């Protein structure tokens, strides 16, 4: 009982901060999602599904796909940093992968818009070096552009966490497996990844949630239909002053993020018990 109390006391300051300065103001918005002219009802949600069910699916697919790609790339980068045997290559990679992390999302949107376009810097560089025929250049400014922007920006974030966690693993097992002749890929998949699974999950869920709430990337790369829910929320507010539907969409987005988080929480719960 006393450890429970101590635990609660330790959590309390942080929790109070979030409750007081975010969840309290938020509750007005969530209640607003259920407010209709005649009192309370689900009209805002009906409208949200009526207009934007396609966008909900689109958002989910984009964010899930990006999360998977981020996870794979982050494991690959972390794995090479941990298991790579050429110090020079490891040093190059270490200095290379982190840069996108420092670029704010709104600038990521702008940079990708001018980089991935049909006549953007990427295609013109590739054409100039003779790798593609300029006539065949295509624009990537659709769902692919959003995924690329997300993966570009978020991979370093997860990779930094994963690499840090991998670095603190006990080298003994890895060396032993190595001496037994196991390939590095096998060591990565069978020994390293399982031990840092929790960190990978935490990184991925934080990325998932971040991507769900980013407005500038979809707005600057592809705000057409289908688009992401954040763009719809902004549109509902700025074009119609319609906070009801915007809040309903926000609540739906929150539910999606919470569902992703629950997967992780159940996993850790099972581990703890």
């Amino acid at each position, binding site marked *: 009982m006393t450890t429970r109390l101590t635990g609660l006391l330790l959590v309390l300051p942080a929790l109070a901060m979030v409750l007081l300065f975010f969840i309290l103001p938020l509750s007005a918005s969530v209640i607003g999602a259920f407010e209709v002219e005649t009192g309370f009802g689900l009209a805002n949600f009906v409208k949200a599904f009526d*207009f934007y069910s*396609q966008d909900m699916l689109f958002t989910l697919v984009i964010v899930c796909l990006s999360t998977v790609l981020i996870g794979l790339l982050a494991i690959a980068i972390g794995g090479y940093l941990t298991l790579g045997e050429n110090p020079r290559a490891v040093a190059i990679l270490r200095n290379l992968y982190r840069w996108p992390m420092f670029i704010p999302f709104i600038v990521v949107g702008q940079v990708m*818009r*001018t980089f991935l*376009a*049909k*006549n*953007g810097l990427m295609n013109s560089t590739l054409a100039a070096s003779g790798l593609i025929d300029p006539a065949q250049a295509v*624009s990537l*400014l659709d769902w692919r552009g959003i995924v690329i922007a997300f993966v570009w920006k978020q991979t370093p974030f997860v990779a930094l966490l994963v690499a840090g966690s991998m670095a603190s693993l006990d080298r003994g097992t890895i060396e032993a497996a190595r001496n037994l002749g196991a390939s590095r890929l096998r060591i990565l998949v069978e020994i390293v990844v399982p031990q840092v699974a929790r960190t990978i999950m935490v990184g991925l869920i934080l990325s998932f949630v971040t991507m769900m709430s980013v407005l500038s990337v979809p*707005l*600057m*790369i*592809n*705000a*057409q*239909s289908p*688009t992401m829910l954040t*763009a*719809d929320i*902004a*549109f509902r*507010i*700025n*074009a*119609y*002053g319609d906070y009801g539907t915007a809040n309903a969409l926000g609540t739906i987005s929150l539910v999606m993020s919470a569902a992703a988080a629950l997967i992780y929480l159940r996993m850790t719960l099972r581990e703890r018990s």
Partner: protein
Amino acid sequence: MKIVLKAALATGLLASPATAAELTVLTAGDQNMVDYVNEYLAPLFEEQNPGNTVRVVGTGPGDAGSQKIVERSEAQGKANAETWDYDVAVVHEKFVGPLVKAGYLEQYRDRISTGKLVTRANADMALGTDVKGYVMPMFNSQTALAYNPALVSNPPKSYEELVNWAKENPGKFGYNGIKGGASGVSFVMGWIYAFGEGDANKLMNGPFEEAETKKWDGALASLKDFTTNAQLTPGNAGTLDMLSRGEIAIGPVWVDMFYSWQANGQLPPEFKLVLPEPGMPGQPMHYVIPSKATDVKLAEKFVELATSPKVQAEGIVERFSWYPGIDAQHVQAELEPASWNKLFTDVTPEDLAKNGKPFPIAPYNSAILEAYERSVSN
């Protein structure tokens, strides 16, 4: 830790409410609007009113920027703040109505000397709401089609011609739908004016009738069809961006943005504008003063300066090639004919008079957007 927090509190306290007469101006719109107020208007005002200072905060481009000013006002209104933390705001036409209806604004136009220099209807009515006296127009903005003369030698002069042109040149016309900014919205409104079965004048002037909203089905179906030959661009800036990279040859843009992109070297100087028949919408940016401004008198002085013929001529017309907010004849008198004519290089005053339209009144505006969401983008 404690020291740091104390320092934070101290800085915070020092930074809160100003002691000297400091005028705070919030402005929606692009960076050039912030720069205009900060680099041109503010120094002028400070020179004429020694001891006072002006500070400017940009709230972001487009409707989102104005919406943030409305939200800031709501937050202070509902919190019953004694005095508000801004004295003057520049907002888009669409957001003046809600601010007036909520009772947040000062009715100041008759009290300033430049108030009678404005006779245009859009200074009295804003998308169907009576705002007479509450606003002074900073400038009038207009949408038009921007095109690349190297690719389009004979630009379409009307929506009809544009439809045919797009059919012959698939993928060379681009617009930004309705979610990426008002230049696309404006294109859609112009489309309804041109091809809707109802009376366009009723959409612009009211009154709102439910029956009218049923008359757009044909126009929206043809717009959907037209859009298959068009490219959808990411936002107001996205259209200019694709124009500048040669990915599209023609597209709807805000005239003021077009000129600032040219001035920033982001768009070739030879690009041109055309205002197609039967017209595309434009809108004024308005100066408003909240009733709870710290110093309403000083705020009025500021707006008076900003809407004086000299400033309108030098700042709005000469610097930016924007259409003045106050009546043209007062501004023209202040300018060399050459500078004045530069304003009408591509779009003549006659074009502007004939084809420069207002947006539909608010309820029609929303109804058209929702109809578009339902039928075109699905």
